[in-house]
């Protein structure tokens, strides 16, 4: 059984994780932890293995070596579906929305695991299934208000500009009410104003709901502002781990990452 994790305690622990694709070693003996309630940034140059790391955390990739402990439970090769049931949600580097569905339906899809009315009730719709639908709709409307996307509720997401798509994707992840939220470059391709909005949302989610966040981001100033602790990867290896102040003073980091223009 998973145990209750209090704020400040370790929620997720990765030890000695290695992942390779054929000959390519994407992650080499990396270990770090994420504590409940913090914003944990993962940074590093292109191809450092950041996305692969998130994929390991939510069960999409299965590392060849190492252990992962989530909420005090050691876990082995879980499916993404199981990760979702355990309260891990994420957004994607390349937006992975359901293109043919409206904004509202995309966000409602985040409620899938919390809806339980069976097939027969769904067939009838009126009655319990609709009541359930409306309860969840209310939660979703809160998320919509919070992220200020009420005006695009009915728009098929395929037609939205990129910045808004990223926001809808965040909304969809928030609708899952996860315990651990993984954000893969949520601000990529955004202009300054959009980035500021997004930063504000991330901070608010973290402050107000105490949601634990793992954040991959290339914009260093954003990372420094937002995160409590930062882990730095380079060529699949962990080269630094600490507070923003510690990391930005680290010579390895300066050499490997901050020195390189992006």
């Amino acid at each position, binding site marked *: 059984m998973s145990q209750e994790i209090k704020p400040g305690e370790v929620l997720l622990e990765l030890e000695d994780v290695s992942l390779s694709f054929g000959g390519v070693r994407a992650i080499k003996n990396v270990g770090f932890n994420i504590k409940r309630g913090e914003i944990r940034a993962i940074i590093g140059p292109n191809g450092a293995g950041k996305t692969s790391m998130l994929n390991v955390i939510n069960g999409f990739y299965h590392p060849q070596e190492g252990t992962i402990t989530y909420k005090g439970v050691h876990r082995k090769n879980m499916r993404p579906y199981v990760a979702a049931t355990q309260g891990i*949600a994420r957004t994607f580097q390349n937006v992975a929305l359901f293109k043919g*569905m409206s904004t509202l339906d995309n966000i409602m899809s985040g409620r899938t695991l919390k809806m339980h009315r069976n097939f027969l009730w769904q067939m009838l*719709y009126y009655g319990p299934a609709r009541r359930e*639908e409306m309860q969840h709709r209310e939660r979703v409307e809160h998320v919509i208000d919070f992220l200020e996307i009420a005006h695009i509720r009915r728009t098929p997401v395929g037609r939205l500009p990129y910045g808004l798509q990223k926001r809808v994707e965040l909304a969809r992840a928030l609708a899952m009410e996860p315990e651990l939220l993984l954000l893969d470059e949520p601000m990529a391709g955004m202009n300054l104003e959009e980035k500021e909005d997004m930063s504000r949302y991330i901070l608010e989610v973290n402050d107000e709901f105490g949601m634990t966040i793992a954040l991959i981001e290339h914009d260093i100033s954003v990372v420094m502002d937002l995160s409590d602790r930062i882990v730095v990867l380079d060529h699949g290896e962990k080269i630094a781990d600490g507070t923003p102040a510690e990391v930005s003073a680290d010579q390895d980091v300066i050499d490997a990452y901050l020195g390189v223009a992006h």
Partner: protein
Amino acid sequence: MFYRETGQYKTSYEADSSIFPILQDRIGIALMLIVAFVVIPLAGNDFFLSSIMIPFLIFALAAIGLNILTGYTGQISLGTGAFMGVGAYACYKLTTYFPDVNIVLLILCSGFFSAFIGMLFGLPSLRIKGFYLIVTTLAAQFFLEWAFIRVGWLYNYNDSGAIEVPERTGFGLVLTGPSATPTTRYMVVLCLVVAMTWVASNLIRGRIGRSWMMIRDMDIAAELMGVRPLYAKLSAFAVSSFYTGVAGAMMVFFWLGAAEVESFDVNESFSILFMVILGGLGSLMGSFMGAAFIWILPVLLRLIPESFGIDISVATLEHINFMIVGALIIFFLIVEPHGLARLWKIAKEKLRTWPFPYA
């Protein structure tokens, strides 16, 4: 001018998420239902009921079945004809064993047989996609066709190799067989199709429908949101095949009266697929439009020259029909994958803002 949502404020999420949120749409549907349930049975002659309305409704139901699989879940199937066949043969066997049971009940039961077979052939979809899945469903089609010919038990070892619909009753009326009136048959078909369309629309707007569409649009993300691909895909195959199976049983029992394997061949699969493409992938309304188009176009092509006294050979008409349908399929696939239903929607959007398109 009159097609407006102005002044119609939604005061609850219920109202906002009803199937037809705009009042004019609700009136439109009500009118259509009145026409279907009252005007057509009173005004339509036997030819219109038997040869146009009944097959149209049955094909629309089959198209809804395929649309659930292809339009909503993104799994392409060329086995529709065979799954219709499973429904028809199942119903034939059921009514052989239980001649006194209400035939409508048996028709619905036969849907479970096709649902089961559909699920079985849907299993590979968990591993394969796209082209390979098409080939698998095609294999299912040919295997089932073979079974319809070779397994004599299915057609009670008739010399003709065909299933012949016996006279069956239900609700105190003769519903099938030669002495069932077109009006009775039409009403039964209409009730079943309307009820099943309503159920389909309920499924689609709820959690299950969303999980189908999630799989269709981005299966990886769907799994990360907690959709189990196994459940979503197999339930889509099951529901879809249930619908096509019931449509197949209705086709034989309420329309054709007798059928052999040719009624369920791959051409049938294609013609249902064309209905779905023309009508609109992922639209229930489109399934009706597509069925109307594919079924009624050839009838019109035959009747119009006739009424002008022009004599065109049947073969020529068939060619013309093929050419029109083919050209339209290509047009829709390239220009408007959401089919007639989408064109209709665009027309409505224009109407809503007319005469100030940028207001």
